[in-house]
């Protein structure tokens, strides 16, 4: 649960052009509330992190006031605080966005790509943006999920072991040309599973529904059901065995009396 809050804070630090707001109660009219808030803060997009049952994180990306909105289920969350993600980039520098070409294959992916570009790319000459380009966002569609990673550009000389490489990458800032540049992951990283695309902001007509999406509640319920059947299957197996034995009686054993007193 708390890692989702950290994830949100990480995203806030990644986007210098964003404005962080307080918690919103998840009432049925959250759409209206959120739209109002966005108006108030004079923004055009909204990213809403919704955590349900302290387990599942849903992310809404919506263009306010009347643009389309998407609801995602977020998996595989790794925040920037994880010590395995060793990179560090300049706060506020404009990122380079990379997409895989399968974003252009279907309309709904194209729409998502457009929304992502508009949300994640810091506007040029924004007052909080810094010069230089030292990190990359990677968006990839794998298995109908959008995977998101952040990498920083680093220069390192040739080393023998992976650990040495990591260590030197940790210390050295980019000092050379593009050919020697490599990347170190900064984080955060997550995986988005699109659930629905709506025509309006936080509501409206459903434009797209993911046919492969199963809600986490359903998954948990089905797992429980599977486990619940254990006893029944055992009993069934027993009776089946009995029937089988009755139907196929064994031949009398020649050695049965061998050891009888």
């Amino acid at each position, binding site marked *: 649960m708390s890692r989702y809050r950290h994830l949100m804070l990480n995203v806030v630090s990644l986007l210098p052009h964003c404005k962080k707001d307080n918690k919103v109660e998840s009432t049925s009219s959250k759409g209206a509330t959120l739209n109002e808030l966005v108006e108030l803060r004079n923004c055009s997009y909204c990213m809403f992190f919704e955590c349900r049952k302290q387990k599942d994180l849903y992310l809404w990306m919506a263009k306010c006031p009347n643009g389309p909105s998407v609801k995602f289920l977020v998996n595989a969350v790794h925040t920037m605080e994880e010590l395995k993600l060793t990179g560090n980039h*300049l706060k506020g520098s404009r990122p380079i966005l990379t997409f895989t070409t399968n974003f252009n294959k279907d309309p709904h992916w194209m729409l998502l790509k457009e929304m992502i570009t508009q949300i994640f790319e810091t506007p040029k000459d924004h007052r909080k943006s810094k010069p*230089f380009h030292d990190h990359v966002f990677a968006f990839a569609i794998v298995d109908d999920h959008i995977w998101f990673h952040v990498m920083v550009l680093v220069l390192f000389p040739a080393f023998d072991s992976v*650990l040495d490489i990591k260590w030197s990458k940790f210390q050295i800032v980019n000092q050379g040309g593009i050919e020697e540049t490599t990347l170190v992951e900064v984080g955060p990283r997550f995986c988005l599973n699109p659930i629905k695309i709506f025509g309006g902001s936080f509501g409206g007509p459903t*434009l797209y529904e993911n046919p492969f999406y*199963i809600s986490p509640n359903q998954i948990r319920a089905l797992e429980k059901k599977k486990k619940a059947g254990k006893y029944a299957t055992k009993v069934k197996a027993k009776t089946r065995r009995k029937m089988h034995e009755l139907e196929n009686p064994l031949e009398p054993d020649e050695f049965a009396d061998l050891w009888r007193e």
Partner: protein
Amino acid sequence: MGGIRREDLFLGKEDFMGRNDDESESELGSGSDSESEEVPSSEPSKRAIYNREGILEKLEDISWPENVDWIHKLAVDLEEDKDLDVNDDIVRELAFYTQALEGTRQAYAKLHSQGVAFFRPPDYYAEMVKTDSHMLKVKGRLLEQKKKIEEAEERKKARESKKMAKEVQAVKLKERAKQKKEDIESVKKWRKQRQRSGFGADKGEDLGFNFDGGGGGGGFERSKKKRPGVAPGDRSGGSAKRNVGGKEKANRKRERRDSKFGYGGRKGLKKQNNAATTDDLRGFNKGDFSSKKRKKNL
């Protein structure tokens, strides 16, 4: 195949829209879900809405105009790996890495041609996305890992060298034993020779057998080496580590002080019983046989 489904109304004859169709057919055919979990759900794609025109409309609504410079978008498209197995972590991560790297190369090419500063100079110090304290932790962890690996290597090397050393030692011992044997043999030979060639010029001498002195009396006396004995006051029974050499001074100092300030002897010995003290009943009460006190002791 079922009756008319909602998607059919929107599906044209175009081939690239066959995706949804294929899914739904496979759904019906196998009756099982396409997800990796074995979930026998009831053909979810039947309900799946796919309003292509609506989506494309919205896309046009929100898109930035065509003549927007690339520098505002900074988005790069890259070919993806078709056969990426989601569950294979390493391959997947590698794919993302290559994607990002390729993307930066292309972006660099474009920006460089426009003359935009790309790399952050090494002396540009500004606020970073992770705090310095956090980076210290990361550094600590990396160092630890490095140390662990190095230690493991060293231990391995030590083990190996120990093995080698053992072998070398064994060889050396053998050599020494051989040498000793040879020495003795040579002396015996020499004696024999002298015997054979007669004693010639050295009649007055003894036969050369040296029984006194020299290595413990020529082997007939026991070695006079001191064997460690246990001092009577030593309560550890001789198993305590004895001070070797360098600490004699401190011991002597201690003993001097003990004898000067203490009432003599080791502390613990004061309370030990001996012949004199067992019969000594001075400390016991002399016969307060009043009833109160006796009842208390019951």
